[in-house]
């Protein structure tokens, strides 16, 4: 079973961040929300392994819940 990799794997972190920013350029809030949903779905298919995805979702969720408790 593959595990979620959370160590730094990005060769070009600025490019990755900029790609996310650019994707939302000129979109309404509703369109942006749809973009995020479709982006996650496309990446989920690329990952392919539902356990990796579940682990990523749990990691993100726990990060959000930490903010709540913070």
């Amino acid at each position, binding site marked *: 079973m593959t595990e979620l990799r959370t160590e730094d794997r990005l060769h070009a972190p600025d490019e990755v961040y900029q790609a996310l920013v650019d994707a939302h350029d000129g979109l309404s809030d509703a369109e942006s929300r749809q973009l995020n949903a479709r982006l996650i*779905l*496309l990446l989920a298919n690329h990952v392919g392994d539902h356990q990796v995805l579940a682990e990523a979702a749990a990691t993100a969720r726990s990060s959000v819940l930490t903010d709540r408790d913070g």
Partner: protein
Amino acid sequence: MPKAYVHPTFPFAPPPELAAGAVGKTTVAVVGGGPVGLTLALDLAQRGVETVLLDEDDTTSHGSRLICMSKRTLEVFDRLGAGAPFQKKGVVWNKGRLFFGETEVYAFDLLPERDQAWPAFVNIQQYYVEDFLARAAQATSGLALRWKNRVVDVAVAGDGVTLQVETPAGAYSLQADYVVACDGAASTVRHALDLPFVGRAFPDRFLITDVTMQADFPSERWFWFEPPFHDGQSALLHKQPDGMWRIDLQIDADSDPDAEVREENVRPRIQRMLGPDAKFEIEWISLYTFRCRRLERFRHGRLFFAGDAAHQVSPFGARGGNGGVQDADNLAWKLAAVIKGDAPAALLDSYEAERIPAADENILNSSRSTDFMTPKSPAIRDFRDGVLALARDHDFARRMVNSGRLSVPAVLTGSPLNMADTEPFAGAMVPGAAAVDAPVKGPEGHDMWFLETLGANFTLLIYGQQLSLTEADVDPGLRLLFAGPGGPDVMDHAGRLAARYDLRPGTGYLFRPDRHVSARTRRVSPEWVQAALARARGKAIQ
């Protein structure tokens, strides 16, 4: 009430217990004459088990209710000799279409493997289902149909179950060696024993309407997410016999149920869907909230629960009635084998071992479909709408679209009756799988379906090889079938059987009386057959 169907009145006869003033006795009592109870009673009686069926009513279902009979259900009815009227009267369908807004997203085929006797589904109103099964039951000896017999109380003892029954002519007690409660989601038997029905209720409501009209929609399942005619909610259209159409419309969770089911409120909704010029008549209206729940145990000593009395699911997916028929199919041969002394009482433990996981699978699928149709937050709705939008161009998203995962027979993996494979096999016919059909020829060269050759008891299929093995050598209750490209018992002329079961010369399959695979091997020996049979009869259950 439908106009094309006349509800029969089944005869009420004062039960003999009243005149005799004594407690009645029977081997098995089935409570409830719906599709599940009738299937079970028919199956038991055909296996020679003395059976009494008790139903509180004296006619068939009042509304169309369940309409989608799955391939497996039809195969069970056919095994019981009741298949023909479904073929004649039902609306055959194999395809579904999905729409998002105004556009079709994609179409899917539920029967990719053709060349089978029965289609993926036949649509037919529940009153016809009960009518056909009741007529078959009336023609079956050893089966007493007691209409207008209402069970009001139940007492379970170690050696049997006693039912208190009320009839228009008076009340009586009936003592049965075994009782099976098939009395639906509001089961009187379940309530009498105060057994909790645990699970999840969904706040969302669906309005179910049957209309009759002249229309040229094809025999397909059409499902809309956010259609323009229905304020962004879900809708489903299904064809039924007699020019009748089933229309399901999702309505707001906080709507007033009493107002929603009034015809003057339903009619404009349907008119918006069908267009301003459409002429139709409303035949039946029902409203329900979805529930996915089940009993913790399906067996309490000699009392069993089957169908909606044991488990309840949301209707999208046709898993309620079809799941219930699979319960009946699973239990009948086991009860018969134990009653006749062909199997130890432990065989009955396998009913729960097999049907609770099947119910959980139905509940899981049904809950997920409901969650997909009714997103619970804006963020979840974003994903749902994202899946539907991507589905236009991407196969992966199509496979995520969930408008109901339609009923397929449960694969009884992990059953204590299965013998694990010891050699590699390809394909879907693993131990626990329901036998798939294939076109074959019989001993005289006539066309047959493979499932017809299996009969109603254990069957051992041996492929491509004549062994000096006879029924008497291994077991008197076993049917032996030699198959191959040239027969002799089953002629696999087109090679479909070999392909679907991964058959090679020497391969053997053991099928149970309910036509599930219980064991298979590449080399049949009398010892293997005896071991597999013993296991399938529950002899390994502690």
